[in-house]
């Protein structure tokens, strides 16, 4: 047991180290540097073209002219003390920048996870119950076709329809600018109002996966002997389906949810960009454009760590749900 634990921690640390190394070297392998940006992202943004002299000065100032391994060692050393470095673009600590934007991302990712899982499981169960009937066929075909639409395209369509034409939802942002709320309820409403379309887009991109997994696992599970046993006991359809079949079919869905959060952390970059939603996805995008190395590193690290944590949580939860595991 003790040995297992040690090797687990060792594996976790080595995974983390590899991620850190990739996070560090990958941005630096891209052409350009933070001080040679020549394009402006938004209209009206001032383009500062630095002279070669200024550029070298800043490179020296941020220590970017030193050998890579030296920079890496410094980065690792600072990381040990919890220092993620300073953002070159925002001119403030990377951790502050992340803390500013992370909550928005967490909001839409968690929201999308909950919504897509619940609706996927419900649809999957309905589909499995009506297997080979019309409703199952329609749902299956529809959702599979739907899954083929990339999430950013879906986001664009939703944005055009609901925000541009129907004007039901805002075009951008996470809150109404300069809003004056009468109490927290109104603030919460405003936040949900802004988060709605991004959450829907992300949910829809994951829905089909959950749906298919639930449906197919349920169909497999219902052929198992224990379902026959439950039927024989005359427990009634509802009990058989929910207590016996669904309970077992949800096990792989739980595992999937862990992976799903990882996939969504990547997908969120595009979705946030479409909706100009100020989460870390959009921040990452602008950091990449601006070659803001410390910020890129910081955000990638947060994403990586959150995926690791999710997987860890899923393992723990799975162990609780399935008594056959981890004893």
């Amino acid at each position, binding site marked *: 047991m003790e040995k297992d634990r040690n090797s687990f921690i060792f594996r976790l640390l080595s995974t983390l180290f590899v991620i850190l190394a990739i996070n560090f070297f990958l941005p630096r392998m891209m052409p350009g540097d933070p001080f040679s940006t020549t394009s402006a992202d938004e209209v009206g943004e001032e383009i500062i073209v630095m002279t070669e002299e200024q550029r070298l000065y800043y490179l020296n100032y941020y220590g970017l002219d030193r050998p890579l391994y030296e920079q890496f060692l410094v980065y690792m050393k600072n990381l040990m003390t919890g220092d993620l470095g300073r953002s070159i673009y925002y001119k403030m600590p990377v951790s502050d920048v992340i803390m500013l934007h992370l909550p928005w991302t967490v909001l839409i990712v968690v929201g999308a996870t909950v919504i897509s899982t619940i609706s996927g499981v419900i649809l999957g169960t309905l589909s499995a119950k009506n297997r080979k009937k019309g409703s199952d066929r329609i749902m299956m075909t529809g959702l599979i076709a739907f899954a083929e639409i990339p999430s950013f395209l879906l986001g664009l369509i939703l944005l055009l329809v609901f925000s541009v034409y129907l004007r039901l939802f805002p075009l951008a942002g996470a809150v109404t600018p300069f809003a004056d709320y009468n109490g927290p309820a109104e603030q919460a409403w405003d936040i949900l109002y802004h988060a709605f379309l991004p959450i829907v887009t992300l949910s829809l991109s994951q829905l089909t996966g959950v749906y298919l997994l639930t449906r197919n696992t349920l169909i497999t599970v219902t052929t198992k002997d224990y379902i026959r*046993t439950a039927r*024989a*006991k*005359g427990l009634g359809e509802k009990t058989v389906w929910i207590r016996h079949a669904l*309970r*077992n079919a949800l096990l792989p869905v739980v595992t999937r949810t862990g992976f799903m959060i990882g996939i969504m952390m990547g997908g969120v970059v595009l979705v946030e960009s479409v909706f100009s939603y100020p989460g870390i996805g959009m921040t990452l995008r602008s950091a990449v454009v601006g070659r803001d190395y410390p910020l890129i590193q910081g955000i990638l690290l947060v994403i990586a760590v959150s995926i690791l944590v999710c997987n860890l949580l899923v393992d723990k939860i799975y162990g609780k749900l399935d*008594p*056959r595991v981890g004893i």
Partner: protein
Amino acid sequence: MSLLKINDLKCHYLTDADTVRAVDGISFEIGEGEILGIVGESGSGKTTVALGIMGLLPENTAISGEILYRDELISSLPESEMDRFRWKDIAIVFQNSLEVMNPVMKVGVQVTEPMIRHLGFSPEKARSKCADLFRTVGLDPKWMDSYPHQLSGGMRQRVLLAMALSCDPKFLILDEVTSALDAFTRKEIRDLLVALQKKNGYTMLMISHDITFVSSVASRIAVMYSGRVVETGPVRDILVSPRHPYTRGLVHSTPDIFVYKDLWGIPGDVPAGDEFKGCPFSPRCTQKIDICKDATPVLMPIGGGREIACHRGGIAGLLEARNLSFSYRLPDGEYLRAVDNVSLEVREGEVLAVVGQTGSGKSTLAHILANVIKPECGEVLFMDGNAGGGSYGNKVNGIQIVFQDPFSSTSNRFTVLDAVKEPLYINKIGSNGDRLQMVKNALELVRLPTTDNFLSKYCGELSGGQRQRVALARAMVMEPKLLIADEITSALDVSTSANVLRLLKGLQNRRGFAMIYISHDLSLTLKIADRIAVMNSGKIVEMGNSHDVMLSPYDEYTKRLVGSRIGLCCHNH
């Protein structure tokens, strides 16, 4: 009044490719408090019957016929209506497997579930009854809080039993409850079932391929084959004298019944084709006639509460000898009664061993039966005498005999080909080309080479084992219905005789001919015989199933014969 009645039940599984007739028209009744056993090999449709009664057959099953419980038709009830009967009236103990219980639910919860639903128990009350049930089936109630995978196979089987008993059902179906268990657990479960049945008077339907287990609990047995019942009757009668060839094969393949005999299964497989005509057992049957291919036999009463589905009325008699006597005249003018008023019967496909010490008249009897010598009085009827007295040795599908000493029964100066071909030649069977092929087939049967080189060898060049096989091939070339083997291994060494004997029994099992095996060697005889006749001074002193004769001989002479086996040094008592 019958508790459960099944009328012409048919369950056909419809798949895209074909239709599997898992159950094809069976009918039976079970009276209150009765235990009926259904036996049959895997794929015979036993479990489908059980699932059919419970209404648990998959959706792609076409079901016809009726199932009546207390005169109420339950075979066509919708799922929700069927739930009224499930568990409270009819419960089933499933075959233990890892996934027969919900893997993520504690076993105690799974046992209490039906009580809460059907009996309206509170969870606490159900739990306390569950603990009682666990004690009843011999499980510590502490196991209630474990998951199925934490229990052993035997424990799971007990939980399944407790689960089935939870709502005090009237009718209990047991589906292969012991087949995955070791011998000790199997016996414990059996004793438990018997005790529970005595106490609570359950009506039971026991389904198993384990004929020993079923027969130790049930009072009546139905033997199923390929979706049909082929024989039914009281347990003891069926075990002692099975009347259907399939039942006999099943009984003979059971090591618990034939303790000494080598295991030989029934050759062939259950027919799988969906459009099968005729008797389903006919491809494996040793006594099939023309009608068996075309018409399916129906279950007919044959008296004694027994019913059988066979066009030939069950295992047919092949040879009957009545009151045979024969005396040799000794040089001093006295007569020696070698065979004294012997009557016996050989049925289709069976191996009858005649044992006795040297000089007891075995060989003389063999010679009379093979029509080599004529009896002084008495008669031998072969195939109901249809074959006509005297001529049955000269015909294909007749009687053939293989003698003790291959060195005198095959001529040194004959080639192998001539020796084997001789009976064909004498009896003018086939053209020359046919004969050569028949000889080759016969040699193949006895595992001898069929090369020209071997065919033209002289018998004198062969070893004892080879020569006995040539003698065997000479008998086989006539495709006998009855083979008489007279001490055929006594002139051979141990290893060769073991090979010849296994070859012979293998041939018998595959080709399905009947055999009279004459020997003084009781140990060898027990390996292959279905029935044994013990001869002493020209009389048959005891005759019966080989295990009965061996385990409980009643005749003094037989007891001596059984007791006269020399044990190995370490077996001395």
